[in-house]
């Protein structure tokens, strides 16, 4: 109204010119906002991605300001060289079996008519949202020196720890990640190819090995590469159940935390960085454009969707899935039981003492975990979306470089990133260690590749057309951004947010080096509790963390679920009052 009156009174005949003048001012302003964001994105990428990675790499070849290969000599020319072999064979072994297990689960859930396949899916997801070290706690509870199976049931006095235990836990833990990736590709696989192969007379088994598996191979490769990076980054499992077995990541952790030997830790980090960075290029090289998926998700013909193997093979595969699910649910049950058991292994009576002590000393950690996770969930995807929006259009070398920086954190193992941050932000002018900000920042950066890719995918799909259409219909850049681009990115934002929240809740590798007494989080408390040998307390912390993660995910989903819920309630109400909803909407 005001606006209109203004035009009527002052502009009269010159209204047209004045209005276009206002257009210009508004455009300038929005241009300014866009420019501000366009400058912020590269600065953030340079400061929080490139600088730390360079810093940690360079620190490994400098000793007290002098160029020196001393740390590498320590690594390669002493018995420490064993670390490299340990890391290598453990990673390959765990990756292979985790991916295989993931593949079996995916085939079982997506392409079978097995009973209980929904439960397998649920088990895998439960694994993904469960905090680190939960499997370690459960393992120790079952097979440790006072383990339920080894000691209580069998009366043995042994401790099943060592590299086999690490391998076992890593395989189980990463299978669910492999499963999710492979299942996703499997669901989108173009089934017409299988159909035409069947049509050409191939047997089902032949179709599986000559069509399905090769088509799936890029998905399997992607899963394996991700699992491999994950395992390289895993320092907790070897420390907790590895006994004397050490790998690069756990050694780097010990060097920083107990010896504060930053130079040597940097060298270990760099050695870890090499395979991880090569994976980025390997992924481009192997995968490239080879993800053969169809955009049309057809679920018709679910009959021939089923893969048939020899009954014995089928039974074996089913057993594997069943055991995996059983083990996962045992996890959850044992965590709950452990939380409320007086002293595990000695006194199996009900007790609230772990809960009490956790509430007494750990309340601030609960608050911190939640606070950080929410902050990461809100700001992380925003950064990713902005980066995707700014980097997608330009084809220049510079923006390609920034795009690389946006996905780089995906390949940098968590502990390496954490150590890099400690080295980079320990001195003025960027004296950030000890602050809550740096913890949120590292989580945001670690989540950046996911939201960046989600945003990029949406923008690629949307194309430039819609933005052009909006401008063509008379909208300015700001209207176009807020009314077209942002709403279209909402689903990607949601994906990024859920990921970021889970990550913020359960992350440990990167932030463990940045945590100060004031900023303790739940995952850290779990780690400390197990290291002290206090399983009950660890279980209690883990239990709280799981409950909070599930509740948080539920709350995060509400903004998307509520409108749907509201609509259905409303329609039911309208119907119960004898009004047809369609008619009602038309009247509105």
């Amino acid at each position, binding site marked *: 109204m005001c606006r209109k009156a203004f035009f009527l009174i002052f502009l009269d005949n010159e209204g047209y010119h004045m209005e276009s003048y206002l257009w210009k001012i508004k455009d300038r302003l929005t241009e300014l906002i866009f420019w501000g964001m366009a400058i912020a994105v590269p600065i953030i990428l340079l400061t929080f991605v490139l600088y730390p990675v360079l810093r940690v790499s360079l620190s490994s070849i400098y000793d007290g300001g002098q160029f020196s290969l001393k740390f590498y000599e320590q690594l390669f020319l002493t018995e420490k060289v064993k670390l490299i072999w340990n890391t290598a064979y453990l990673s390959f072994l765990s990756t292979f079996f985790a991916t295989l297990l993931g593949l079996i689960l995916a085939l079982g859930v997506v392409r079978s008519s097995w009973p209980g396949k929904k439960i397998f899916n649920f088990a895998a997801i439960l694994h993904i949202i469960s905090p680190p070290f939960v499997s370690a706690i459960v393992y120790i509870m079952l097979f440790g020196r006072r383990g339920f199976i080894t000691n209580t049931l069998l009366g043995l006095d042994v401790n099943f720890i060592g590299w086999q235990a690490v391998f076992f836990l890593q395989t189980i833990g990463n299978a669910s990640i492999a499963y999710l990736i492979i299942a996703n590709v499997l669901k989108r696989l173009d089934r017409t190819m299988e159909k035409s192969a069947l049509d050409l007379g191939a047997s089902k088994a032949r179709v599986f090995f000559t069509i399905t598996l090769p088509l799936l191979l890029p998905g399997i490769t992607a899963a394996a590469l991700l699992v491999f990076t994950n395992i390289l980054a895993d320092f907790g499992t070897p420390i907790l159940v590895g006994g004397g077995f050490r790998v690069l990541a756990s050694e780097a952790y010990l060097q920083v935390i107990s010896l504060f030997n930053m130079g040597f830790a940097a060298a270990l980090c760099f050695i870890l960085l090499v395979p991880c960075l090569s994976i980025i290029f390997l992924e481009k090289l192997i995968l490239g454009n080879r993800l053969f998926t169809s955009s049309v998700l057809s679920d018709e013909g679910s009959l021939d969707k089923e893969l048939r193997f020899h009954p014995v093979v089928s039974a074996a595969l089913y057993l594997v899935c069943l055991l995996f699910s059983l083990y996962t649910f045992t996890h959850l049950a044992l965590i709950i039981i452990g939380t409320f058991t007086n002293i595990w292994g000695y006194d199996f009576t009900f007790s609230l003492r772990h809960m009490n002590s956790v509430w007494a000393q750990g309340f601030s950690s609960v608050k911190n975990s939640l606070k950080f996770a929410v902050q990461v969930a809100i700001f992380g995807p925003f950064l990713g979306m902005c980066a995707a929006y700014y980097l997608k259009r330009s084809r220049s070398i510079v923006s390609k470089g920034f795009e690389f920086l946006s996905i780089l954190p995906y390949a940098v193992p968590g502990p390496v990133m954490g150590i890099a941050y400690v080295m980079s932000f320990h001195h003025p002018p960027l004296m950030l260690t000890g602050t809550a900000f740096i913890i949120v920042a590292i989580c945001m950066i670690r989540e950046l590749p996911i939201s960046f890719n989600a945003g990029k995918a949406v923008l690629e799909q949307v194309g430039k*057309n*819609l933005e*052009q*259409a909006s401008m063509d*219909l008379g909208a300015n850049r700001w209207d176009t951004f807020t009314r077209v681009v942002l709403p*279209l990115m909402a689903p990607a934002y949601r994906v990024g947010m859920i990921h970021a929240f889970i990550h913020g809740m359960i992350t440990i590798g990167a932030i463990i080096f940045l945590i100060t007494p004031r900023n303790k989080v739940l995952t850290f408390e779990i780690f400390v509790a197990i290291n002290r040998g206090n399983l009950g307390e660890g279980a209690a912390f883990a239990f709280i963390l799981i409950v909070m993660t599930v509740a948080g995910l539920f709350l995060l989903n509400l903004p998307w679920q509520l409108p749907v819920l509201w609509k259905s309630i409303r329609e039911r109400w309208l119907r119960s009052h004898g009004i047809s909803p369609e008619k009602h*909407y038309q009247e509105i």
Partner: protein
Amino acid sequence: MELVLKNIIKKYNQTVAVNDVSITVPSGKIIALVGPSGCGKTTILRVIAGLVSPDEGQVILNGRDITQLPANQRPTVTVFQEYALFPHLSVFDNIAYGLKTRHIKKGEIKERVTRVLNMLKISELKDRRIHELSGGQQQRVAVARSLVINPQVILFDEPLSSLDAKLRVEMREEIKKIQRETEITAVYVTHDQEEALAIADQLAVMKEGKIEQVGTPEEVYENPRNSFVGQFIGWGNLFSGEIISNSSDKIRVNMWGKELVLHSNGNRKYTGKAPVEIFFRPENVIPQEDGTWEAEILQKFFCGPTTRYRLKVSGLSESNPVLMDLFVGETGYQPGEKIRFNIRSASILAASKEKVSQENK
């Protein structure tokens, strides 16, 4: 609103997309830009819309130079090839989008949207989401969204290319009808020559960034200026011949060893013994018992209203057949039959191949 393009040039890196194009679209008329893909027709559309700025030249609307005006301030609107409908908005909100950005009152928005919904017969779809619509319905929504903002110029970018054949014909008739009624100046880009002929008041045939010929559809069809236009618009036979003589009203040409007489229309350009390109339409090949040339029917294709024949003219190879169209009701032939035929009317397109290339320079 008269739309004038003056000497538009647009280069992408080294390739020239639009090379010195000038067009005038009279107010309220529809001009079709037609040409093979990559001929620059869509670039011209983008230039008019303001989505691409030309390297040189001017866009003048109703006497006002709008070359520098950004897209969102131009009184032009585009119907995009893939419709570019907003997937997150309902049909109603898609159509209302342009009005909302103009801060028009709610009541008026509703009134105007309802009017175009009715005009395009899609009122019952207004609460649907875009992905719930068929291709034809999406097309209607796209047209409605463009019409509702009362544009001075409406630009169609191959709007029917993703519809099936029958729907395409229906929609183009509807678009033409609406354009007539609203009298909005329109530019219609297509690579489909039949669509262009059907919809246009004026036709501009383009090739490699240049305009080859402008005229009414009838003019372009009947008197193509060169072999490209002739071959691109409709079907044509193109053969070489030799001038025998050129008098004030008749040109005599030697075709396949026989004499063909053409109207000269006062054209004295071609004299004595010059090799020329002769162009004639398949429907101008007339079978007659005392016809000048003899031919054998190679193949027959029944196309409904017409039947197409491929003829092997005596003395010519099979790989160089003459096309002949006969209408339903005329005597038909079977492959293998021998016939004699005349050519009713033909045009001389160029003196020779060398001259064609010289002309282009």
